[in-house]
């Protein structure tokens, strides 16, 4: 199952990684990106958003760093592969694998106590502004997380591992 989609502007946030499927309909922009080596198939990693918003720093899979505007990224079709747990792109009922825990040592220890570790699988039961409720597959024990906590947990899709 592949879900190629336009990532909505509101969902653009650091730590999202996606595979570009098409460069968008503006020929000039597409050509510019292509000439810089950003092509369909490239893994794009959102690094940060400028303090005033609107401009986004991304890196390609060959280590190049770029600044783009929201409009350009939103025009691409992209397949999200990794995202923070609080992302809009997270879907209820999906199973994900934990890729990384971003916080400090205490945060990691606290998470580990409730069984949240790198490489573990988890399933989302509920999303939204209320605590994110998720269910861990290995333990089958539901865990509730706050938004701040969810932000620091990076998860990746497992359905398209073969890609």
């Amino acid at each position, binding site marked *: 199952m592949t879900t190629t989609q336009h990532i909505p502007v509101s969902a653009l946030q650091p730590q999202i990684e996606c595979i570009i499927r098409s460069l968008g309909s503006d020929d000039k*922009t597409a050509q510019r990106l292509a000439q810089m080596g950003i092509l369909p198939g490239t893994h794009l990693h959102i690094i*940060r958003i400028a303090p*005033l918003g609107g*401009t986004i720093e991304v890196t390609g899979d060959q280590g190049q*760093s770029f*600044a783009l505007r929201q409009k350009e990224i939103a025009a691409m079709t992209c397949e999200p592969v990794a995202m923070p747990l609080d992302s809009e792109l997270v879907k209820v009922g999906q199973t994900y694998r934990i890729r990384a825990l971003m916080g400090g040592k205490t945060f990691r220890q606290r998470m580990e106590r409730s069984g949240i570790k790198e490489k573990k699988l988890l399933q989302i039961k509920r999303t939204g502004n209320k605590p994110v409720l998720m269910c861990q597959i290995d333990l089958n024990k539901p865990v509730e997380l706050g938004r701040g906590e969810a932000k620091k947990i990076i998860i990746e899709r497992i359905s398209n591992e073969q890609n």
Partner: protein
Amino acid sequence: MNKTEASVTIALAAIPNSGKTTLFNRLTGSGQATGNWPGVSIEQKSGSFVLGEYSINLIDLPGAYALSPVTEEERVVRNYFLQSPPDIILNILDARNLYRGLGLTLQMALSGLPMVVAVNMIDEARRQGISFDLKVLSQHLGVPAIELSARTGEGIPDLKQNLYKVIKYPEKTRNPHISCPPLLEKAFSEITEAINQSGIDTRLDHTFLAMRQLEEDDPEQRENDDKVDVMTRKWYRRLKQSLRTSIPVACANCRFNAARGLAMEVLHDQPAFEDQLTKQLDRIFLHRFFGLPIFFLLMFLLFQGVYGLGAPLQELLSSGFDRVGTWLASQALVISWPVWLQSFLFDGLWQGISVVTSFFPIITLFFLFMSLIEDSGYMARAAFLMDRLMHWLGLDGKAFITLLLGYGCNVPAVMGTRILTSSYSRILTMLLIPFTLCTARLQIFVFLTALFFSPVIAPLIILSLYACSFGAVILTGLLLKFFQIGGTPEPFIMEIPPYRLPTLHSISLRTWYELKDFLFRAATLIVAGVLIVWLLIHMPADVPPGSEATWAGQLGHMLTPVFYPLGIDWQETVALIFGFIAKEIVVGGLAVIYSGSDLAGQMSGHITPLQSISFMIFCLLYTPCVATIATIWSESRSIKITLLSLVLGLGIAWITSFIFYQSGLLFGFH
């Protein structure tokens, strides 16, 4: 290539941020010349050096990502390759990230021209633990590849030796193979066949020409009906239907697939590496909360560095000039000359030279600090931080810095537009800078507000003038964006290069070239402008300078119908004519015109506070000075842009003053 030919043209072609300018400076040293590419406002730099028995003409091509153009710079590079192919291509790759540049390298390797690849920044790559096998690179590309560091000079002799070998013993180059989808390959081979049959005489590879044909913007637009064009159109239509992407994107895809594989082989399959230092620094400089305060602090330091240090030096220089001028004028020999000649020499020519030299300190400091910011990699970060703010004016973030520096002095700011990457933002910024309130204009405002207003009101008036300047920049920006003066904006996709330590050598070299450029390109125009104003103020010879009977006075009277609705009398009109030389001399000019001992008293008796504000608004918005206009001309190389700048300044100044003065009268002020 003809071995007996003593002069060889080498074109330096590379993607932006690969150290092209540094290598160019390293190879040519002082033998450089600048000009413009025909028809566009893009600088053409060439230099010469000697290689054994050959004299080399090195052409520095603008930075380009590919030969299928998106930007005006890339169009220049493409046209250059197709119309006057160089004898040898010198291409640069960034050792820290080979993949970035390989797309262009592969494209050029297909051209069939002899090429040498310089893998630059080897010192930094080594520091980051990258190692590679250049033999593999050289074999795949079919051309010599040399590792070097243009910054430190390491590997330069090796490069020269290889260039020499390529000139002396030219070998038939073997083009690298890039695999493409079958349909695209078929298109290339059929168009190549048509080119073969056309019997065209070129040193360029025919497949390379076929690729250029197909990657053009729109082959349908071409009128020619020869076989090649018919074939191209046929394939263009067919490919457009069957490819999922546009043709240039599909071609880029083939190239970068090859580039990815090649980079991996050369780098012994090392994973894409990360520059830890850059990552750490960016965490601070691009921080969500601290990023902007740090930026403004740095801008403050930059402003202080340029103008805080520059202004005293500037004053020292011009007072030195005055003193030397006075001393020369008092010489017995000079006094024996006719009065008009003395005046021409000292009030005209000497004054003009003095204006030119007074810019030296700030231009020097400006480019010292600017190169520091640019070479270190911070400029791209600044552009990233400021992009949102400038975007709705149709500009990119770098324009913010040049506009900001305009608040010190317009001349270096206009020169600084060179750092802008697209010609669209360059032209737009160049036209906006004259509306920034420079320190010379500030002097007029300080004098006049002190004269007409209480110490409480005066600062508020000056503050409002600053607001008026911001407003003029923003509104004119929107106006120019709306009318698409400068063409259409280019897509904003900016590379953020890793941080680097700039070297004194490259910074000082750059500053020196900028100064030289200013001297050769703008200086004559400045002196000419000063002389014209001198003529206006001093002719005819038998009346007191600046008085009603001079040409300037007559002009002032003639312009009365134009300036009367603004509340500006002929005396002030003449002062505005003085202001064309430099805004610093407006107050002095007023003293000459009123030719009395008590300027303050005379002026406050003659004009009302409302009129004084109207005059100040006009001063703020009209043409800053002849030096700025000369610099705009020398930077844009376009009469159209220069005239537009004049018209915009005068027009907006007139309209704003008119609205202000008339509504002031309506509200009962006078």
